[in-house]
């Protein structure tokens, strides 16, 4: 137990010493502040703590649309763009060298010559590396949590789901980094492979999602025969997609957990309609929510965790039996 705490403390010290960690944290804080600066009043909404304000019919104080928009900005813009895109890349860059450094000659000996099993060291080191993301997302989401209370008047703890979900996405990709770096001891190779898997997952998500929409949702024209023909293609894409980690859908799973206006579930349909305002044609948007929720949570997170588990087991096995 003391050894585990020692290893975690060491991981924390390692992070603290990285400039990128503080830069990312600074940007996180800034983005959180920007988010907090969005306010609503009787006639509409304002940005930068009231510096810029404009009138809006839907988005004004007390309107249920305002909450939808406010939460939507968080889940649909900030989380996908900042947290699970830029912050993850920065996170991968700053943590990818942890294993190669740890395993380098003259330094691994200090840890392996101790009365602690290699597997324990490996797993703790892995968990310790996730601290980077945990601190970033944790801090940011807590800011958002307070911002929501301030602007909407109610506590909405369901937004905190974004912390474990973002951490999950990072952990899938970090498992790739760990496996590659345990094999090659190359930080660069680790980052490249993780990006490759991420990109592959992004592409397969788009392919599978579009095939699903074309084959199953009514709004896509409704040519029954063509839809039948597309179904085998859809199934093939699912087979391929299943083995990959579902980075985008894991984040989107948050839609099903977050409460808006006291009701569970964030509707992308409603959100898009609200953003488009008068130009929105509700019929065009129909089916978006179904498409986003086409896969069960068990499928999305379960298969991704299996992916992560397989990679980690392999990496752990190699770590435990190699000579240093």
């Amino acid at each position, binding site marked *: 137990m003391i050894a585990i705490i*020692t290893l975690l403390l060491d991981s924390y*010290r*390692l992070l*603290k010493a990285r400039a990128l960690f503080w830069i990312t944290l600074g940007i996180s804080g800034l983005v959180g502040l920007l988010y907090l600066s969005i306010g609503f009043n009787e006639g509409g909404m304002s940005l930068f703590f009231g510096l810029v304000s404009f009138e809006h019919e839907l988005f004004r104080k007390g309107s249920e649309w305002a909450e939808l928009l406010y939460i939507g900005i968080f889940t649909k813009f900030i989380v996908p763009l900042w947290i699970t895109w830029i912050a993850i890349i920065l996170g991968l860059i700053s943590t990818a060298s942890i294993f190669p450094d740890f395993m380098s000659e003259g330094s691994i000996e*200090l840890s392996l*010559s101790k*009365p602690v099993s290699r597997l324990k060291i490996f797993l703790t080191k892995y968990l310790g590396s996730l601290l980077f993301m945990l601190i970033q997302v944790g801090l940011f989401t807590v800011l958002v949590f307070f911002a929501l209370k301030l602007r909407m008047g109610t506590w909405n703890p369901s937004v905190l789901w974004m912390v474990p979900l973002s951490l999950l996405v990072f952990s899938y990709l970090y498992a790739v980094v760990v496996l590659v770096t345990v094999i090659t001891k190359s930080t660069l190779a680790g980052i490249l492979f993780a990006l490759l898997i991420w990109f592959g997952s992004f592409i397969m998500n788009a392919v599978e999602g579009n095939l699903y929409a074309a084959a199953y949702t009514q709004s896509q024209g409704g040519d029954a025969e063509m839809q039948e023909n597309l179904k085998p293609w859809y199934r093939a894409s699912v087979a391929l997609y299943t083995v990959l980690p579902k980075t985008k859908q894991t984040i989107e799973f948050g839609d099903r957990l977050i409460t808006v206006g006291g009701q569970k579930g964030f509707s992308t349909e409603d959100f898009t309609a609200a953003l488009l305002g008068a130009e929105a044609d509700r019929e065009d948007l129909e089916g978006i929510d179904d498409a986003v929720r086409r896969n069960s949570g068990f499928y999305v997170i379960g298969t991704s965790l299996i992916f992560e588990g397989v990679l980690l087991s392999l990496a752990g096995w190699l770590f435990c*039996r190699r000579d240093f």
Partner: protein
Amino acid sequence: MEPPVLDLKHVRKVYKGKVEALQGIALQVPPGSVFGLLGPNGAGKSTLVKILTTIIRATECEGEMLGQPIGHKPSLQKVGYLPEHARFPDYLTGRQVVEYSAGMAGFTVRQASSRVEALLELVGMRDWAQRKVRTYSKGMKQRVGIAQALVNDPKLLFLDEPTDGVDPEGRREIREIVKRMREEGCTVFINTHLLSELEQVADRVAILAKGALVREGDLEELTKSKEEYEIVLASPLSDELVYKLETLSAVVANGHILFKGGDPKQLQPVIDFLRHHEVVIQSIQRNRLSLEELFLEVVEQSRNEEPT
């Protein structure tokens, strides 16, 4: 007699790529001694220590350390290790390095704190303990390395080239630390190719060459076999005296007289002879084969035995 701290019967290691780094080593290290493992570069010294500290796995391994089979993790609680080319995370301070080592051995920061202070003082790094390792010189890192190896109060201490990069004063301090550890009942196992270091502290030495033990024994015994007296004269001898001296089985070379054997009685006739001829003796000294000469001789032998 107490059982040996280290009792190896057969340790063999073949690296990937078929380098046979150790060809079945058998050796024993008695408790409370300082044991020196000597060998030229690539002999397999570090490989052996890394096997004992579970950094690498032996291909074949039979033997015990502290009464437990090699590879038994819990017994490492009582083992200290300074690896060769030790590198510490540069985001840590010297003190944190030592505390990390203590923590991994199962001591909380509080439990270890007084020992950590004492060790930093002992290795002369107390004033630097708050600075980051990246600001240290090589010798300072080595000092911190020694402190971290001692922090768990080991019964068995492995030092792999401990004086690497350390200045003469530091070397002397390290020797003092080794002696002190021995007094405290710790067994110290030192890997080195710096023979002069060992001569002053080691009780037993083993010489390793190409993965095989070629000589092992008490330092005394190993070096006693080749002793001689060296007599330095104030002025050169005449040819006649040289000739006569040689009949007394002394050898004369550049004004020095060498007399084989360590028995002082047998030397007396030579002295009598010289004094009788009124030769002025400047000094007489008894030389024993230095460890270095023994080492070079043994390594040379093993090279010759090699069937090429």
